């Protein structure tokens, strides 16, 4: 039976190895070498951890990592707040056309990021963009939004919020609509006020879903590339140069594949640590129980 199962799984595993694991191991190998197609000094030689040491003291890389979090934190936070509020309002309103509304709501989320970037770039253009022209006309801005060090990142964050808030809304709305009615009815009978109901019933129910959405959005926001590339290419200056844009420039514009691979691996590690932290948070109760079992034995803590 096991052999038969293995035969069925084998093709999938082979494809997974070729398209996913093999490139990862190649990148890992590159990251320990001095491979560059734009340097007359580079011979592809083994350099050990040099690329990693260089990356950890590279001001441009550290700056780009900071930029990534400057984008990630406000973008994800606002998406969660707005998405949560909208989902709750939709759920409470008992609006009958909600199922028809969902496909419309989700349109920005399913559009390709490159198109979203183009929409952002064109609509914010201060000479002919539908948003940019009016902002200039009413004196809110003097020149271009995406050409301003102060405004370019907020503009990208706003575009991201516009794209991803519906996704958060739809996921949380599904959660709200699946709540059992009994606890809420019981709370009402016991005279709980809306805040108490929200805090003690709604939140515990929605918390796991909220955590998953936060995790998904954080990973996605950490990987951001296409929108920023289309809108600003990391400029003006390096004010929107996220770590993925920096990695892209190193790998595919400067063809410094060794150092570029080390940067990519470091980004993978940061992303992995983020995931681990979230999972630990999500499963904190389970982890706590397991620890108790280890320390006190199975079900014998209090004895």
């Amino acid at each position: 039976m096991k052999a038969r199962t293995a035969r069925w799984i084998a093709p999938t595993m082979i494809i997974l190895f070729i398209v996913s694991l093999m490139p990862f191991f190649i990148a890992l190998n590159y990251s320990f070498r001095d491979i560059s197609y734009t340097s007359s000094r580079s011979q592809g030689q083994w350099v050990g951890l040099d690329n990693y040491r260089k990356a950890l003291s590279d001001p441009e890389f550290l700056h780009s990592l900071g930029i990534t979090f400057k984008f990630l934190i406000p973008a994800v936070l606002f998406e969660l707040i707005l998405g949560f509020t909208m989902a709750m309002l939709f759920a409470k309103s008992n609006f009958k056309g909600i199922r028809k509304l969902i496909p419309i709501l989700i349109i920005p989320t399913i559009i390709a990021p490159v198109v979203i970037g183009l929409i952002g770039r064109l609509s914010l253009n201060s000479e002919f963009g539908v948003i940019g022209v009016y902002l200039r006309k009413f004196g809110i801005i003097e020149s271009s939004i995406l050409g301003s060090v102060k405004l370019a990142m907020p503009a990208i964050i706003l575009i991201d919020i516009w794209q991803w808030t519906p996704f958060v809304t739809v996921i949380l709305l599904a959660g709200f609509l699946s709540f059992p009615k009994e606890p809420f009815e019981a709370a009402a009978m016991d005279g709980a006020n809306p805040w108490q109901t929200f805090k003690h019933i709604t939140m515990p129910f929605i918390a796991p879903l909220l955590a998953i959405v936060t995790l998904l959005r954080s990973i996605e926001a950490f990987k951001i590339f296409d929108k920023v590339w289309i809108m600003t290419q990391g400029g003006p200056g390096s004010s929107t140069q996220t770590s993925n844009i920096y990695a892209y420039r190193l790998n595919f514009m400067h063809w410094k594949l060794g150092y570029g691979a080390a940067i990519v691996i470091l980004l993978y590690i940061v992303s992995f640590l983020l995931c681990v932290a979230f999972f630990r948070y999500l499963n904190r109760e389970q982890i706590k129980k397991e620890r108790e079992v280890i320390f006190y034995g199975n079900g014998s803590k209090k004895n």
Partner: protein
Amino acid sequence: MKKKILLVSIISLSLVCLFFSFGFAKWTSLEENSKPFSGVTLRLIGESLPPLEGLNQAKSAFEEETGIKVIIEMYGHQEVIQKTTADFVGNTGIYDVVLNPHREIGKIVENNWVTPLEEFYNNENLRNPELTLEGTFLSEEWFNECCAYKDTVYGLPFHFISMFMWYRYDIFEHPEEMANFKEEYGYELPSPPITMEDYLNTAEFFTRKKGEKLAGETLEEDFYGTAIQAARHVATYYGWLNFLYSFGGRELLIDKGSEYGKVVINSPEAIESLEYYKKLLDYSPPGGLTYTWDETQASQQQGIVAQAIQWDDATYAVEDPEQSLVAGKMAFSGTPINEVKMTQIEGWTMFIPRSSKKQEAAWLFVQWCMGEDSQIAQMLNGGASSVREIYNSEKIKNIIYAPTAVYLKSGEVLQTRKSGDKTGLGVPETFVNAINPSTGDTTVTIIPKPTFPEQEWVVEKIELAVNSVLTGEKTAEEALEWCQEEIEKELP
């Protein structure tokens, strides 16, 4: 035994004779010599601009004559470089002819990705005797920079291009504007601006608000004295180089692109030129900080800009009445002079990758591209042919920008234009007669750019430094000092 040896020798000799008589005869005609390759499909990649579109239209003549099919892929500037480098690195052999900007030549040669031209050029069976590298091109210096690296030729020029000034002669030569300028600045309105001081003054003079008058007409939207390339984009590197060189600065002290000279990007001339470049932003459209070549061109097509420094192979769009509101109102001159009357060498070169499995057929196509039909087709689509002879053609003579483009590259004056002429045709007489302060005569200094493998890094650092000054993040001195350090660290 002897009989056997004799028989084998006769058969071998016959086969060799047969091979040479049918497959690889000495050059008789393209049709004859391309017969062994009939049915082959070639794939070419290049930048998506009208001249390549012109080649795409003209290639059917080659296909009919040879039976070789040619597919031309067109992408944006950076995409072409990325796709071709990926093809080379992976040794995939997707492309048989690769067009790349000449600044890439060091990278592709040092990595052994392209075949030296001599392998085809010295082959009597593949070379059309009409093609010769001596005396064919507008400028030998240009050819050596674009097509050769360390004295070995690796490709043939798709075109020689340079940046020059596009200006609206209809407003520069309007009597009312001329009178107002004289009153305000105390000297005649220069058409075109010859010096950097002229350029700044005219940029300031022509910057007007909606509702004001321009050349006797009330403006329906804001009008700008110039438009510069200022985005974080390779266009900003090229755009600023015109000013850097004109002010007497350089990136490195070199005579040839392949040399590693002393890095001088933080020189006083460079700082002065960058401060000047930033001043021009005040007279540019409000989105200036996001401008690349495309936006600069679009703003000129919309008729909201008086003058800009642009590529000579992009003039087609601005002179086409279907795409441009200013067609017939433009004239073309050299970059204004400060310390040097100059032009920067640039060009796209046709290379044959080592990874191609159809190199000989690819060579036949590249060779055909240098012919009259192909070159004229490109010129009629806004090209910048490198072949001197093409400019004698009746079909080419009336192309407005061609005399200026030829003058800058070769020093030859095909036709001059006087201020007040009814068309924009010809190189402005005042520019031809302008003295080059660095030489003391009227010649144009042709400036090569670095082409060594690290050049892309140099470009990126300059692009970032210039952009950070334009956005106000850094002063010119700070940005160029940082740039100097970064480039010095990278170069051997």
